[in-house]
C-alpha cells in the first residue's frame, strides 16, 4: 500500500524528488498548502469531524475505501479540495482532470456529499488532515488493552495463583509429615535399645494397627466429611457454571474478523452496531451496512477477485436472505440490559464488557455475564454526572459523603433495575 501511495505522490509532485518523498513518509513532512491552519484547536476540531464523517472510508496515511488524505491540499488547490468534500460529483462533472482521474482510479466510487459542513468545519478538517496525529495506532490499542486487563483483574487474586499456592502448601505439609515419620522411627529405634520397664517397653514396641485406624469412628467421620465436602464443592461449582458461557466463541456463518475491522481498520463499533446508543440491542449490522464498504472492498488487503467470505454478503443481498449469525452473548431473558444506558449514559467502553474485541478474529464471550459480575461492576463504577442534569439532585445529596457517587448509591443494586 505504501508503494501505491508514493506513486500517487510522485505523479503529482513532479518537482519533489521521489527519494526524498519516501524518506519523509511517516515523519509528518507532507507538504501542505500554507493557508491551512495548523493550530492545535483547529486540528482537534478537525479530528472530531474526521472521525464522524470521514473515518469510515479514509485514513490520513493509508489507503482504504478512498485514498489516504494527507497532502490533499498540496495535490489540489485548497478551495477545490473544499468544494470536492462538499460535493464531489459536481467537481468531477466540472471536468477537473485530477479529480476525474482519482475517481476513475477508485473504480468510480462516489463520495457522498457533505454540504452540511461549514467553511470553518472544512478548514478544521483540512487542518487535521494535514497536521493531524501520526501516532502509531498500536499504542492506542495497547492502552485500551491495559484498561481492559485492569478491570478483569479487579476481582481479587487470579485463580491460577491460588492453585499454585495450594499446591506448594500441600507439598510442604507432605514433607513435614515425612520428616515427622522419620523422627518417630529414629526415636523408636533409639528407645528400643534403652533399658525400659515393661509398660514402657510395651508402649514403645506396639505396632501401629492401621486396620484399627481405618475402622475407627473418627477416621470414618473425617473421611466421610471430606468426601461430602468435595462432592458438594464440585456440585456447587458445577451448578454455578450452568449457563455461564464465558469463552463461548462459536463459528459464525461468515468468518468476520473484528481484529481486521475494529483493530486494523479502526472502524468505530457504532458504525455497524447502530443500536448501541439508541436502545437495548446493540444490533447485529444488517447486510446493507456491510455493503456500504463492501460494494467496493471485495477482497482482503487489496487482493484480486472476490473473497469467498465477502461473497456471502453479496449472496445475502442478492437473494434477500438474511445472514443467520450465531448469538454469542446470551443474557437470560429475565435480566433486562440496555446498551444505551451503559454506553451513552455510563460512557462505558465496549471493551469493558466485551474484552479486547479489536484483537478477536472470532468473537468470544469475554465476561462471565453472571449477576455477580454485573453487581461487582455496579459496586465499583463511579457515575459520570458531569453535565448531566439528571444527576444534579443526587450529586447534591451525596456531596456530604467522602466517597464518589457510584452506581450502587443510586439504586444500581436494586432488583427492579434489571428484573421486571
Amino acid at each position, binding site marked *: 500500500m505504501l508503494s501505491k501511495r508514493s506513486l500517487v505522490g510522485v505523479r503529482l509532485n513532479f518537482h519533489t524528488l521521489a527519494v526524498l518523498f519516501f524518506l519523509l513518509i511517516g515523519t509528518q513532512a507532507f507538504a501542505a498548502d500554507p493557508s491551512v491552519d495548523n493550530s492545535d484547536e483547529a486540528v482537534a476540531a478537525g479530528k472530531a469531524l474526521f472521525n464522524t464523517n470521514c473515518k469510515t472510508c479514509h485514513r490520513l496515511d493509508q489507503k482504504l475505501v478512498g485514498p489516504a488524505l494527507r497532502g490533499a491540499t498540496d495535490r489540489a488547490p485548497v478551495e477545490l479540495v473544499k468544494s470536492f468534500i462538499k460535493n464531489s460529483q459536481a467537481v468531477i462533472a466540472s471536468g477537473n482532470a485530477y479529480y476525474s482521474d482519482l475517481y476513475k482510479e477508485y473504480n468510480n466510487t462516489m463520495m457522498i456529499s457533505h454540504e452540511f459542513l461549514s467553511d470553518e468545519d472544512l478548514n478544521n478538517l483540512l487542518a487535521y488532515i494535514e497536521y493531524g496525529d501520526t501516532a502509531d495506532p498500536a499504542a492506542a490499542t495497547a492502552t485500551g488493552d491495559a484498561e481492559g486487563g485492569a478491570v478483569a483483574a479487579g476481582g481479587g487474586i487470579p485463580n491460577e495463583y491460588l492453585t499454585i499456592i495450594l499446591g506448594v502448601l500441600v507439598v510442604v505439609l507432605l514433607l513435614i509429615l515425612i520428616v515427622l515419620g522419620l523422627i518417630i522411627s529414629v526415636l523408636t529405634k533409639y528407645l528400643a535399645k534403652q533399658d525400659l520397664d515393661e509398660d514402657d517397653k510395651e508402649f514403645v514396641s506396639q505396632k501401629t494397627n492401621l486396620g484399627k485406624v481405618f475402622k475407627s469412628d473418627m477416621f470414618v467421620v473425617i473421611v466421610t466429611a471430606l468426601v461430602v465436602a468435595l462432592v458438594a464443592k464440585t456440585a456447587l461449582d*458445577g451448578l454455578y457454571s*450452568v*449457563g455461564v*458461557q464465558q469463552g463461548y466463541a*462459536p463459528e459464525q456463518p461468515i468468518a468476520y474478523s473484528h481484529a481486521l475491522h475494529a483493530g486494523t481498520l479502526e472502524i468505530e463499533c457504532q458504525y455497524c452496531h*447502530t*443500536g448501541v446508543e*439508541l*436502545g*437495548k*440491542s446493540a*444490533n*447485529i*449490522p*444488517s*447486510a*446493507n*451496512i456491510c455493503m456500504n464498504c463492501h460494494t467496493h472492498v471485495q477482497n482482503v488487503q487489496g487482493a484480486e477477485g472476490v473473497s469467498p467470505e465477502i461473497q456471502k454478503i453479496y449472496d*445475502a*443481498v442478492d437473494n*434477500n*436472505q*438474511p*445472514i*443467520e*449469525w*450465531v*448469538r454469542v452473548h*446470551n443474557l*437470560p*431473558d*429475565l435480566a*433486562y440490559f*440496555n446498551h*444505551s*444506558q451503559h454506553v*451513552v*449514559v455510563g460512557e462505558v467502553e465496549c471493551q469493558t464488557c466485551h474484552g479486547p474485541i479489536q484483537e478477536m478474529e472470532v468473537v468470544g464471550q469475554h465476561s462471565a455475564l453472571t449477576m455477580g459480575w454485573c453487581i461487582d461492576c455496579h459496586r465499583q463504577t463511579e457515575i459520570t454526572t458531569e*453535565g*448531566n*442534569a*439528571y*444527576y*444534579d*439532585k*443526587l450529586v447534591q*445529596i*451525596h456531596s456530604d459523603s467522602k466517597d464518589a457517587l457510584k452506581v450502587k448509591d*443510586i*439504586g444500581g443494586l*436494586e*432488583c*427492579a*433495575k434489571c*428484573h*421486571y
Partner: protein
Amino acid sequence: MKENKKTYWKGLEQLNNDPEFVKNADREFPELPSTLNEEGSASRRDFLKVMGFSLAAASLAACEAPVRKMIPYVNKPVDINPSVPNYYASTYATGGDYASIVVKTREGRPIKIDGNELSPINKGKVNAIVEGSILSLYDKERIAGPYSGGQLSDWKTVDAQAKSALASAGAVKIVANTIISPSTLKAIQQFADANGNVEVIMYDPLSNYGITKAAETYYGSAVLPSYSFDKAKTIVSFGADFLGSWISPIEFARQYAQTRKISKEKPEMSRHYQFESTLSLAGANADYRTPIRASQSGLAVLALYNAIAKKAGAATVSAPAVEIAHLEKAAADLWASKSASLVVSGSNDPNVQVVINAINELLGSNGTTVDFANVAHYRKGDDAKMNQFVTDLNAGRVGGVIFYNCNPVYDFARGAEIAAGIAKAKVSISTNGTLDETSSLVQIVAPDHHFLESWNDFEPKKGHFSLAQPTISPLFDTRQAQESFLVWAGDTTSYYDFLQANWQGGLFTQVETSGTFQEFWDQTLYNGVLAINSTSEALAPVGDVSAAASAVSKAYSADNASAELVIYTKVGIGNGAYANVPWLQELSDPISKATWDNYLTVTQKWASENGVTQSEEHTSKASITVNGKSLIVPILIQPGQAEGTFGLAVGYGRTKAGRVANGVGVNAYELLDASKGFVNFDITSGVEVSATGDSYKIARTQTHQTFMGRENVIQESVLSEYQKDASAGRSHPQIYKDGEFVKPSKISLWSGHQYSQHHWGLAIDMNSCIGCSACSVACQVENNVAVVGKQEVLNRREMAWIRIDRYYSSDAPADDLSAMEVASSNPEVTFQPMMCQQCNNAPCETVCPVAATTHSSEGLNQMTYNRCIGTRYCANNCPYKVRRFNWFKYHDNKDFAGVNVAQNDDLGKMVLNPDVTVRARGVMEKCSMCVQRIQAGKLEAKREKRKVKDGDINVACAVACPTDALVFGDLNDSNSKVSQLLKIEENTTSALKEVNEERAYHVLEEINVSPNVWYFTKIRNKDLNEA
C-alpha cells in the same frame, strides 16, 4: 365532621353473611379445588416420575446452552431499531365505534394501543374494547386468504368469480355496519356506479336508529347529534349507558368526568339522574338513580316533558300518570340549569326520542349540550331498511349480497332469517376476516385487512377527520375491502392511491396551508387527525311532539304486569365483535363482577319468590322464552334492577368466533324484537321466565380479595358537606399510645425510607372513576398478565394486577334487616380501582424468606420473579389482596392454549411486551407500577442529560383511563401533577410526605403501611338527608 356510617358490601353474600363467603373471606387463598385434591396425593409412581424428570432436567442443564441465532435485516429500514418502540397515529373503527389511537410497535409488531392526545374527540383516551382489540390482529381464527365455496382460493380466481357473478346477479345489496369513512363510501359508490343496481344498507348491532329517525321527524334531517356532557350541569338519562356502551362512551366518559371533578378551586359538580331498568355503568355513577320498568320508560319521559313544559309555559301533552321517584326533582334541576342541561335516552323507539328532542328544545339544550348542526356519524344504521333487506332476501328478491365487515347472522335481530336466506341470493360475498357466523355461509370470502394493517380515513363527526395507517404488513393473504370493491368495479388503483387522491381532491382544497399536498398528507398522517372549521346553522324543530307523545302514551303503560326483558350491553364485550379476545372475556364486569359468561340478571325479589338462591359462584339456570324463542341461561341476582325486569347482555353466544368465544354464554340478539320497524332492546311483552333448577357456576370475582370487613375502605360524602368542609367523609383513625391518641403514621417500627431522586406515587380520584375497566385491560396488555380461564377464576386465581372493586352501600343500619333489604334493591355504587399500593412500610417485604420482594430507592415495592420461591407469605400478609400467584405455567401450556392465547401460540405471542417477563409457574406477581416504563423514561432523560419531566413517564392504567381518575407522577417533584393534586409542597426526600389535600386518604390508614397510592373521597351531588 360526620363519620361515615354507611354499610358497604361487595356482593349479597357479604350482606347476608353467607357461610361460604365468611369461610373464604379470611383466606388469601381458597382451599384447593376438589378436583385437584383428588389427583393431588402423589403416588409412588408420580414420585418416581418426578425424580426421573429432575434427573433429566439436571443432565440437560449440564449440557451446552442451545445455539441461538441472531438474524438481522438484509436491508434495515431506517426507522426501525430493534428494542426501540415506534409509535404510529392511526384509528380504531369498528362499525361506528371510533377512537383515534396511537399504536406502539416493537420490531414491527403492534403491541399496545393508546389514545391519540391530538384527537379532540377521545383526547388520548380509550376503553377496554379498544385496548383489547389489538389481540384480534393476532387471532388464529383469521383466514389465510380468500375463500371460494368454502375452500381456500386465490385472489385472481375469487375476483374473476365475483366480477362475473355480480354482473349477472341483478339487485346487489351491500350490508354493512355504520361506515364513517368517506373514502370507503366513495370506493363503494364507484363499485355501485360500475355495477348499477347497488344499494348500501347499514345497520348497527347496538342500534340507535331511534335517534336518527326522531331527528328526521323532529328536525327534518336523519342525523345523530353531537353531545357535550362537559357543558351539562344537570344530566338526566333514561336508560342510556353513556359511560359504558351508548354511542361514543369514551368521549362521553371524558366529558362527564370533567363535570365530576371537584377541588377547592372548583367546588361544584354536575348532578346526574338515571332512570333505568337494569343497573348500568352510567346508572352506577348517578347521584340519583331510579329503577323503572322498561314499559314505563316512555311514560317517564313524557312525565318529564310535561313537568318541564309546565315550567316553560309550553303546552303539555296528555299522558297516563306514572309514579317515578326523583322525576320532579330532576325536572326542577334541569330547569334551574337551563341551557346547561342534557336529557338523553337509550331507547331505540323513535317516538320516545322525539319527546327527548322536545325536552332538550324546551331546556335550550339544542346547540349547547346537544348539537344537531355539528352532527356525529357514529350511527347511520337504518333498522327499517335492514328489515326490508331481510324480507327481500328471504323472498328471493336479492340477487347479490356483499357483507362488508359485518356479521348480521349473529348480531341482527333477524339473524336466523338472514342465515336461511343467504342461499337464495345468486351471489353472496363477505369481506370479514374470519369465517364467522355470516361469512361461513357465503360463497366468496374476500377477507379485509385487520384495521391495524389498513389504510383508511374517517369522519366520525362533521369536520373531524382521521387517518388510519398500517402498523404491520398484512399477516395473511388479505386485501383491503375497499380495494376489492375497486377491483370489482374494474379499477386497479390501490386503495392507498385512491385514498390520497380523494384527500388531494377534497380535504386538501379545504384547508389553508401553504405547503404541498405531500407535506399536508405527512403532517396529517403524523397527527392522525385533522379538524376542518365548519360552521353550521343550528337546526330548528320542524316536527311536532304531540303525535309522538300520543304514540308513546299508547305504547307504554304504567302498570305492566308481565315480565320484561331488557337487553343490555356489557362494557367489556360490547356488541361481541371482539368476543374472541380473552382479555375482554376475563375482564370482570364492573357491575356484576362476572367473567366468561352472560346471564339473566334478576331481582332479589324474583329470586326469593322462585326459590332461587345464589352464593358466591353457585347459582342455577332459568329458561327464558320471548315470543316463542327459548334460551337456557344462568341466573345472577343483580341489585338495582327494576321489579319484574330481567336483563341479558348481548355479545355472547358466539358460535363461530373462535376457540375463545365459541360457546360462551347465549346470544341475546336472537331475542331482540324488530317487529315495530326498529330494533327494540326492551321486550315488554311475551316474556316468560322460569327457573329450571339446574345448578350452574358463574365465575364472579366480586367476593374475591375482600378486606375482611375492615372499615373506611370507601370514604365518601355529599357535595354540600364537602363545600362546608373539604375533609367531609374522611375517617381519621387514631391509635392509643402512651396515654394519648395519635395518627397511625406516628407509630412505626421502621425508621422510614429516603427517596433521594424520585418518589413514585399515584392519586386516584374516586369521583372520576366510573368503573369502566379500561385500566384493567391496559394493564393486562402492558404487563403480559396471563388469562386463566373460567375454571381458574372459579378457583379464585384470576391474575389481574389492577381490579375495580365495586361496593354497594346504603345508609340503612346493618342490623335493620328490612331496611337493608330495601337498600339492597337499589344501592348506591362506588368503584375503587385497587392495585399494589407500593407501601413504604410494606408488610409483604418483611415476610419474604428469600428477599424476592424488596423496596426500591424510588418508593416502589419490587417483585423479583426469578428469586421468588412461591411461599405466598407475601400475599397472605398483604392487607390489600393485590398479589397474584402463578398456580400454573400459563404460557406454552396446552391446557391454557384456548384461553391464554397471547402466551400460547406463535401468532398470539407477537402481542407480548418484550420488556416484561412472562412469569413462570410458582412465582408471585403484582402491579409493578409499570417499572419498565419508569426505567425507560429515566433512561431517556439521562441520555438527553436532563431531568425527568412530569408526564414523561406514565403508567398504563393512567394512560388508558378515559376520565383521568388515576394520576401518576413523582412525589419528589413539587411541580408534578400528582404532587399538586395531593398538595405536597415541601420538597423532601423522606418517604413520608405531608399531604395537604383534605380529600386524599390511604385505604386502611390505621395499619400504617404507608402506601404510595392515595384515594380521593367520593363526593355525591345529593341532598344531605338522602345521602
